[in-house]
């Protein structure tokens, strides 16, 4: 019974998705379409169509990196709601290097832009990290509020100092085409950024499994007092985890510019940073699973466009489905709390049991 429960719990993301799709089908019915047909169109368009799959990969890249930017600090018990802002600042740094650092060979210039983007995200994340580490100011609120600062700062920059001359809409000049990221699938928009994301996810998985840094992060998250006792610096880990997370999100913004849009737009991110939270939770905070959850959410997004074109169903239905996925994953976490409550009860039981065993053992001697 216990093991059945455990397996069911581990598959909670699958249940959440299925439930969300089931409720979503009611919405599709209400919109006057056949849900089975609609879903078939959606998933076929997202995963079994060359162009559609490419579109999925384009969306997957920022989703995955933003998801990892949420996963990493959470291992140390810290919430990074600020991936959105880190994406903007990362993209800004990358665009500045792309536009204003001249005379470099293409590949080197790409690397430099990428590093600048990562640095931008990391520096933006450093603000809440320092406030958290040394002043105990809630990182959730600071990261959330800094998103708006970043969004509007980038808006200001691209509608003022960095605005393309005569542009009808706030955006920067296009970056040199030597900086365009190579394409992963020929004749599509799918670029190499998503591969960088996958490599980072796999590395993070290994570090979490076997790495000393993964262990110290987890220890800080699980018991900061014991971490201090073990000689780990809690403050250092708060700062490090946030800066690395910020760098991931900064990369997401960088690749949007270098791989997809080729210029910095006002409000270009469309909430990838927030969707990263969905990716992280759908993946159960596992970097390996984040690859799949980012692929899934990306597919949902690109398939929605397909569904709209083919069947006239508004993409808002898919947004609702994504919202439902979050809702059900969140609801399943309530089961986790219950599961841990059960786990605690079992723990107490075993504790007493072993204490009693100990006594019986003593009696024999």
């Amino acid at each position, binding site marked *: 019974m216990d093991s059945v429960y455990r397996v069911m719990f581990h598959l909670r993301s699958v249940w959440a998705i299925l439930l969300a799709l089931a409720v979503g089908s009611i919405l599709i019915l209400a919109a006057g379409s056949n849900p089975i047909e609609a879903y078939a169109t959606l998933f076929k368009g997202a995963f079994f169509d060359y162009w559609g799959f490419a579109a999925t990969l384009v969306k997957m890249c920022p989703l995955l990196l933003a998801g990892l930017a949420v996963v990493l600090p959470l291992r140390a018990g810290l919430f990074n709601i600020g991936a959105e802002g880190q994406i903007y600042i990362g993209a800004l740094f990358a665009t500045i290097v792309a536009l204003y650092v001249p005379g470099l060979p293409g590949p080197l210039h790409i690397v430099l832009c990428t590093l600048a983007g990562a640095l931008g995200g990391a520096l933006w994340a450093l603000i809440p990290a320092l406030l958290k580490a040394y002043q105990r100011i809630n990182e959730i609120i600071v990261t959330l509020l800094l998103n708006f600062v970043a969004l509007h700062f980038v808006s200001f920059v691209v509608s003022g100092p960095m605005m393309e001359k005569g542009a009808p809409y706030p955006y920067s000049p296009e970056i040199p085409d030597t900086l365009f990221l190579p394409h992963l699938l020929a004749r599509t928009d799918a670029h190499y950024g998503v591969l960088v994301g996958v490599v980072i996810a796999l590395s993070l998985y290994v570090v979490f499994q*076997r*790495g*000393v*840094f993964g*262990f*110290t992060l*987890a*220890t800080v998250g*699980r*018991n900061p*007092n*014991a*971490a*201090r*006792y*073990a*000689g780990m610096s809690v403050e250092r880990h708060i700062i490090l985890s946030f800066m690395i997370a910020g760098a991931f999100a900064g990369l997401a913004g960088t690749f949007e510019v270098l791989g997809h849009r080729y210029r910095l737009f006002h409000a270009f991110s469309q909430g990838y940073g927030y969707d990263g939270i969905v990716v992280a939770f759908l993946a159960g905070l596992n970097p390996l699973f984040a690859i799949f959850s980012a692929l899934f959410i990306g597919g949902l997004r690109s398939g929605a466009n397909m569904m709209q074109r083919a069947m006239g169903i508004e993409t808002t239905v898919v947004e609702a489905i994504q919202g439902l996925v979050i809702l059900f994953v969140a609801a399943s976490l309530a089961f986790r709390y219950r599961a841990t409550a059960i786990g605690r*009860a*079992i*723990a*107490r*039981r*075993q*504790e*007493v*049991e*072993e*204490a*009693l*065993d*100990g*006594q*019986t*053992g*003593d*009696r024999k001697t």
Partner: protein
Amino acid sequence: MADYKLALENITKSFGALTANDAVNLRVRAGTVHAVLGENGAGKSTLMNILYGLYKPDSGRILVDGQPVTVSSPKEALASGIGMVHQHFMLVAHLTVTENIVLGMSGQGLMLDVAGHTRRIEDLSKSFGFDIDPGAEVIKLPIGMQQRVEILKLLYHNAEILILDEPTSVLTPNETGPFFELLHRLKDAGKTIIFITHKLEEVMAVADDVTVMQDGKVRASVGAADTDPASLARTMVGREVLFQVKRSAHSTGETVLELDGVTAGNDRGLKALERVSFEVRAGEVFGIAGVDGNGQTELAEVITGLRSVDSGRILVAGKDITQTSVSRRAGELGIAYVPEDRHRDGLVLDDSVAQNAILRTYDQAPFASYGFFNRQAIADHAARLVRDFDVRLQSIDQEIRYLSGGNQQKVILARELEANPKVLVAAQPTKGLDVGAIEFVQQQILNQRDRGVAILYISTELEHLLDVCDRVGVLFSGRLMDTLAAADATPERIGLLMAGVAA
């Protein structure tokens, strides 16, 4: 039947496969002090929680004055005249005594009649000789007084049966006497008292009847006059108990640990240690006595590097280590530390036994190289510690949460002692352990002494200190009151120092 104020009949309560209470019968005569004696895990707390309405028994019934009652919440318990003083007080620190007592009373209307309540509480307090100012803020009262507030609260709510859970654990030895007198006065006023304890001498001092529990069952229920400590101990533990650990003769060596005028603050920034100076020699156990919260935790933390000092110096083998990091103190300097609260500081409960076993050396060879762990080395290390310290577990990959307190403490001891430390700081190492585990821990500490380790042994349990220490110092509000050689350290003398009375 009617003679019994309270009767529990065939109470059974199971948690899964474990039967915490197995057909327990408890009969308490009206107007008596009835001790419930047993080790940790014997089922005392479960039984009291059932009586107080926190747990629902699987079977059995509760009778008050011969009438069956159902108790499914503390509120109902109080309505049946049953009140409980928990080991950790349930008081709101920044409210006054009156406010705390009135808190949660129903039928108050919109406006609270503070003056009326205060007057009645004052009268009640006087009639029992409690000497409590109802207008005082609770946080400003000493612990012993807070305990009286808890009792007064129950009396004011018309409780007839008072359950006191380990009431003496927060008192100094000198406060225990007056507390027992108070119990007598309550008894004389017709109150019935259930006194939960694991201390034999208290049973003999104050109880009329005693019920001994072990393994969830009642092993004996006798009049206190008809028994003696030795037979109670035998019944409680289920075997013959030695009241002394083995101590071999030994000689002490050079001074290893030295504190020179150390002053430090606590977490709230208040002064916790004031100019504390002492030295501990190789092969010596220096005990620190004192009521909990008089600077013991801070003392252990400044020595191990978890807390910085405001002034003063800490030296190990003559070298000033005041500014040295936690990991260097643990590693190169060999300062082992058994923290007071193993769940808070000593262990990561969500981690495996093997991971906890390397908590202090996780980044060193052979456990880690180039930033990655060597799982085989970690597993071998854990297996060796488990074998050497006889830790009872299912697997080294099991979460340490699932080990018993005694076995968790063994993992900590094993981890701290295996590197052959020069200094051992043991803060309340026997806290919450049963008699068997206490013996083991104390024996390990004495073994380290014989190896020539300088040991600082902090405990609030005077008997344990006197069992293992060569010298005892007493901390009172952050000051080291005095230091006594073991031979001169009588409970009376230490008790006075613990209460802040200089000898």
